[in-house]
């Protein structure tokens, strides 16, 4: 049951980020050619990573693991 919930959360997170990605407001101007395959890969990879970020932040908030940082997005810098 717990695993199913977790899976659902991940799927919802991915869905949310995907929606945000698609709900773009205006066209982006690129001076450098953004490429096609490379751009799609970056979008796909950022979507998954973005979903995980949001999910992690939510889980932290949910379980109040760290009250002082509950509203912050975790820093992923190495």
């Amino acid at each position, binding site marked *: 049951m717990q695993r199913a919930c977790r899976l659902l959360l991940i799927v919802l997170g991915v869905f949310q*980020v995907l929606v*945000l*990605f*698609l*709900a*773009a*407001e*205006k*066209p*982006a*101007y*690129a*001076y*450098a*050619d*953004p*490429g*096609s*395959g*490379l*751009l*799609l*890969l*970056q*979008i796909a*990879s*950022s979507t998954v*990573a*973005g979903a995980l*970020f*949001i999910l992690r932040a939510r889980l932290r908030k949910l379980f109040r693991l760290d009250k002082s940082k509950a509203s*912050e*997005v*975790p*820093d*992923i*810098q*190495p």
Partner: protein
Amino acid sequence: MTVAVDASRDTLRDTSEDTFRDPAGALYFDGACVFRSVRPAFAAATEAFLNSALAQQWIEQGKLVATQIETRHADGSLKLQHRRIHFPSYPWEWSPAQWIAAGRLTLELCEQALGSGLILKDATPLNVLFDGAQPVFVDVLSFDPLDAGNPIWLAYGQFVRTFLLPLAAHKYLGWPLAGALERRDGYEPADLYPYLPVMRRATSPLRSLVTIPYLLEGKTKGTAPTKRPKLPPEVAVALLRRTLHNLRRALDQLAPSPRVSRWSHYTTTASHYSAADNEQKAAFVERALAEARPRSLLDVGGNTGHYSRIAVAAGASVVALDTDVQATAKNWQTANAKKEPILPLIADIARPTPAVGWRNRESRGLLDRSTGAFDTVLMLGVIHHLLLVDQVPLPAIFDLVRQLTTRWALIEWVPATDSQFVQLCRGRQELYGHLDEKQFLATAEAHFQISDHARLPNGRSLWLFERHTPPEASAP
């Protein structure tokens, strides 16, 4: 910058500008000075960036070229002046280690820029020059205000194409980095894919740099999304940092493994030089350079930089040319670590790097950049290669030396009896066997007078020549 597409770019362009792709502005040269014009729509952001603590810190650290606002025009445009870098070089003249240093600097500046609400709008090695052995980012118009909430780095593709894929092709396929001369925008994943072994395609780092983008390209047929995604700004910045971190990791993975080449250990393995020969040669070079007091010296055939370092000790800034990648890489690594004013470049003086780009005017040729830039030329152990391997006549060699130096030339003469001369001659004694020191000096006399000389026990001789004509305006 993404705020506007400047239609005037195509209609109002000053044809004297040397660069033209960036809608924000253009670079141009006026005599010894380097200027950049900034179009009105981009002036305020450029000025704010240049005055920011971040830009000032980078300039102090030598990571960004020193730049000042020269004029604020009535139409709102700006004229900037850059500090001139001693000798401009191009990626096709760099060793792999220099490519990696330039890539690291690009990623580092982009990463730090995020903290100040800025991002790099392009990411190509052409935005980096080497000041001595240190990489310097020179395109101050590359910093755009961050598009809050957008986690996509639009220059990602360009970084992969112009930094990572040439390095990958060099490391895994042995393609020379000098091939960048023909590829302004680098390689596409499809350029590498057919040549990569299956295992290489399936594993990191080429799986995500070549294979997946290549397969995705096939599916989308160029219909990539052109909309701006919107995420919470802090999530977008975290994702951008993650992207930069992944690129940095890929860059590190693509560093070529050190290899030993024919020339990379030449100074310790050259059997035609005894310890006494080496000692006397170094002593003469020291003495001659103490006389010449060079400010700017071109070391042709610089190898790992032994004599370049003697020139530095005499007060010179040095550009060291060599055709050998490993020797040049070694020279650069030493110079970079010790912060010496030595710029090692991979170049062949007998086939100098040509001018390339639109109308052959975007990137200057090696001889064009060198003319007037050096008061001293060092050619040690080179002349027999030019004579025998490149088959260039002596008078033509001295014509070139005269073009390369505004005053001094220090040249080593290698007699026909020398073991290296005999080896390179390979049975062509009839053609070259008659060349002797007398002819060498008689040819030199057309442009130079002898200022000093020394003979080594191995039969070679060293000559410090001074040009007949009075020195031209001092080198920049």
